[in-house]
């Protein structure tokens, strides 16, 4: 869809395509499942092994409950955070978020629906085997709906552009200058990560109806990994000096460095964590490159001479950017 000159209309269209329609789809699936409850066994299959035989079972009502809560939870979390992140920027580009939410409804929603339908009028849940076809088909449908979501979501591009290039600091001969700052994960970011973890753990508890120790340990291990990753990516030191831009976690790792000689452009931009990077922390985006995203709002964005981009959310990004440009200019002399 081309640009729209009406920012409010763009946001309203996103809410329709990226929020209400996916939620409605999940709700519809849940309603159909509830209507069909009398025709499925009381205990239904919720997990299948590698050869397609059912090995995990639960009460039938967990299907509509999971379908609705998981679907609603994911769509609201991702869509709501993306919307909240638009408050600091003029431009709006939520096409990817629409794609993710509609695609999730297309894949996860239809898959849960399909798995439930397999068991309608089944004599016993143990006999319901699962082939590859449902998973492949629903995945393809998810991708297709994701593409539809992308296409149906317009952008709003601010006429002045959202990126500002500050005047470089004029460094005198012999002068040494550095800019030092710290950027910390916001409460909203922490809340988003926690909410995401609750969703994941909640759905794992519902889905993993098994006492297999390996499954439990894998889940615990994954949780520990996520917590450790979150901790080392929650406070970063940002430094601009003659050597360039250095951003390093207080934990020592991860760290990022752009040498002055590799700096092509320096800008101050407004970042929407969920909308631009899909979340908080150390992020990789196909459109915006690498990001250290700690909060919504102003950020320093460097484009290297090889085209790679690096963005870090930081207060007073304008001064930091001006100094980086100043150092860059000195090396050009």
């Amino acid at each position: 869809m081309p640009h729209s000159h009406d920012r409010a209309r763009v946001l309203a269209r996103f809410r329709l395509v990226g929020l209400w329609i996916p939620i409605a789809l999940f709700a519809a699936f849940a309603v159909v499942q509830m209507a069909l409850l009398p025709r499925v066994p009381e205990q239904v299959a919720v997990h299948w092994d590698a050869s397609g035989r059912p090995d995990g079972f639960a009460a039938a009502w967990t299907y509509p409950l999971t379908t609705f809560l998981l679907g609603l939870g994911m769509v609201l979390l991702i869509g709501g955070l993306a919307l909240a992140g638009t408050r600091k920027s003029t431009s709006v580009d939520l096409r990817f978020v629409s794609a993710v939410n509609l695609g999730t409804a297309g894949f996860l929603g239809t898959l849960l629906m399909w798995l439930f339908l397999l068991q309608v009028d089944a004599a016993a849940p143990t006999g319901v085997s699962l082939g590859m076809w449902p998973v492949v088909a629903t995945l393809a449908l998810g991708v297709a709906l994701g593409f539809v979501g992308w296409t149906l979501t317009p952008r709003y591009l601010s006429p002045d552009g959202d990126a500002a290039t500050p005047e470089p600091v004029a460094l005198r001969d012999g002068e040494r200058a550095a800019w030092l700052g710290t950027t910390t994960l916001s409460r909203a970011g922490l809340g988003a990560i926690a909410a995401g973890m609750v969703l994941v753990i909640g759905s794992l508890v519902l889905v993993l109806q098994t006492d297999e120790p390996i499954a439990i340990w894998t889940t615990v291990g994954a949780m520990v990994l996520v917590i450790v990753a979150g901790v080392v990516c929650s406070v970063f030191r940002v430094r601009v000096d003659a050597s360039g831009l250095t951003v390093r976690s207080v934990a020592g790792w991860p760290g990022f460095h752009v040498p002055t000689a590799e700096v092509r452009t320096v800008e101050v931009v407004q970042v929407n964590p969920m909308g631009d990077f899909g979340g908080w922390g150390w992020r990789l985006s196909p459109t915006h490159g690498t990001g250290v995203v700690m909060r919504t709002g102003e950020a320093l964005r460097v484009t290297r001479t090889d085209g790679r981009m690096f963005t870090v959310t930081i207060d007073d990004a304008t001064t930091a950017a001006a100094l980086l440009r100043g150092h860059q200019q000195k090396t050009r002399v």
Partner: protein
Amino acid sequence: MLIRIDPTSEEPVFAQLASSIRADVGAGRLKPGHRLPSAKEVAESLGVNLHTVLRAYQELRDEGLVDIRRGRGAVITDAATATTHLEADVRALVRRAEELGVSRATLTGLVRDFPTKGDS
């Protein structure tokens, strides 16, 4: 926090560092509770001696502008805001001295030697 120093200037580097931080506090760019970067980081980024930075931090501590605590580093004190209230007065005084042809060095001496309350 932006720091600019000129190693070729006559003013010692530690004094320039202290002035830069003092100016930031005076302008409200550094608020009470703000943690200054570690002396090691400042020294590395500016390419100066670690002890130079430590000396600047100690001078600011002696003035009551920062608190130095183990593990936390140098933190701007609540008293530091008092200096921001003086900024307008300082500006007025400096301009007045310039008008009257009184040098900055003389003015600084006048302020330093002014008797504190209680002295006769």
